[in-house]
């Protein structure tokens, strides 16, 4: 009954989150608004565009009841511009969408409208990798040039992974490594490694601190620390 997974979201769970992102569809059939558990969906009147969560858009697409409009940042020129920026700005955080201002419950991805047709074109949203892959697989006929998009996505991913690896050099156990700018899937990929290294470093640091304190005490007592002391510590 208990969940057998270790802490931290797994890639399928990230994809599940990503499917809550809003995307713009062009319906081919009428559909009234439905009272869903997550709120009422807008009524669909072809050819008026509507914003729907990705899972619903995919369902409609699969039944050929709608076409999905790829978000502006997922077009070859926009991707090429972002790629250019990422490859020149070394290890700098890529441009990201600002979060919605504070409210009672601030909105955050996947509920920000960052992948609809009127989203900004010069910034990647948090779920860019997952969303791009899902759309390319399920709705490649809605892209003008799916192969170019695919190629640019792959380049972008490699450049960003390289940037992330550069960040590894500034690892330490105490503080906090800034991951601002990395997407959900990239965080999930780096989680085991980065989390493991930081926890490991912290434990080494703690052990060193403790043995350092031990030395201090020994000196205070006037007894130099000997190899026996270490043996005792090991026994405990």
């Amino acid at each position: 009954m208990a969940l057998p997974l270790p802490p931290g979201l797994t890639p399928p769970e990230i994809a599940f989150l990503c499917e809550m992102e809003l995307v713009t569809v062009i319906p081919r059939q009428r559909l009234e608004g439905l009272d869903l558990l997550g709120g009422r969906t807008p009524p669909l009147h072809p050819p008026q565009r509507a914003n729907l969560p990705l899972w619903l858009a995919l369902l409609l697409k699969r039944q050929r009841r709608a076409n999905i409009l790829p978000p502006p940042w997922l077009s070859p020129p926009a991707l090429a511009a972002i790629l250019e920026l990422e490859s020149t700005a070394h290890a700098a955080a890529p441009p990201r969408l600002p979060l919605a201002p504070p409210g009672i419950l601030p909105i955050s991805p996947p509920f920000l409208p960052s992948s609809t047709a009127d989203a900004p074109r010069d910034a990647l949203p948090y779920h860019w990798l997952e969303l791009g892959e899902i759309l390319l697989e399920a709705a490649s006929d809605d892209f003008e040039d799916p192969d170019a998009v695919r190629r640019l996505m792959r380049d972008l991913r490699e450049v960003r992974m390289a940037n992330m690896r550069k960040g590894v050099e500034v690892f330490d156990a105490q503080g906090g490594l800034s991951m601002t700018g990395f997407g959900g899937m990239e965080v999930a990929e780096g989680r085991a490694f980065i989390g493991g290294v930081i926890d490991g470093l912290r434990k080494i640091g703690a052990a060193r601190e403790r043995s350092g304190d031990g030395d201090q005490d020994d000196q205070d007592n006037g007894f130099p620390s000997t190899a026996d002391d270490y043996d005792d510590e090991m026994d405990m």
Partner: protein
Amino acid sequence: MDIDDILAEALHVSAPQETLDLQELTRAWVAERVAPELLPYPDALMERVLTRIRRQIETVEEQTGNMDPKTNFKLIVIQTELERFKFLVRSFLRARVAKIDKYPLHVQQNSAEYLSPSESQYLTAHQNLLASHYQSSFLSQFPNSLQKLDDTQGGISMIDAPDPDTAVFCRALRDVGEINVVGTDRAFEMKRGDVRVVRWSAIREKVLAGDIELV
């Protein structure tokens, strides 16, 4: 306050309760999956979500007999969403049970008020069963001083506890200002939208207050 703030606030206020609940449940699920320790049970939220799920199931049951293709498709959409919601709730509860199973005594002693009624019933019943089983199968033959399951004497505690210094990934939802990492001289500022890897103990309070979310 600039125009964006006003717009966003208007957007926020106009969102129906259902949508807000979905956002809150999603955030709670992610937090529970990522955090090393058990978090408070969101009573009111779960109550609302479970009532709605129950009502939606009734709607589906009532309309299943209807063979009209249009209604049929609507039902497919409704059922797909229902399954997604059920997955969220189930995964959320299972993540909690996993933590309760892993640190039963720690949860009983330190965060009993975070449990829902059925979780606390489960924990008590399960612990009693285990204790009586151990007692009858081998513990009764041990010397009295060695029979305890929650001995904290002698330098090593028998009670397993989550490591509060585990590194977690988090995102600031508001400008939270300076964060001091306890036990070190490290401090850093977190602004809205910043994602960082931090010790859980350093941001725990802010996460519970809703200023930082886990990712």
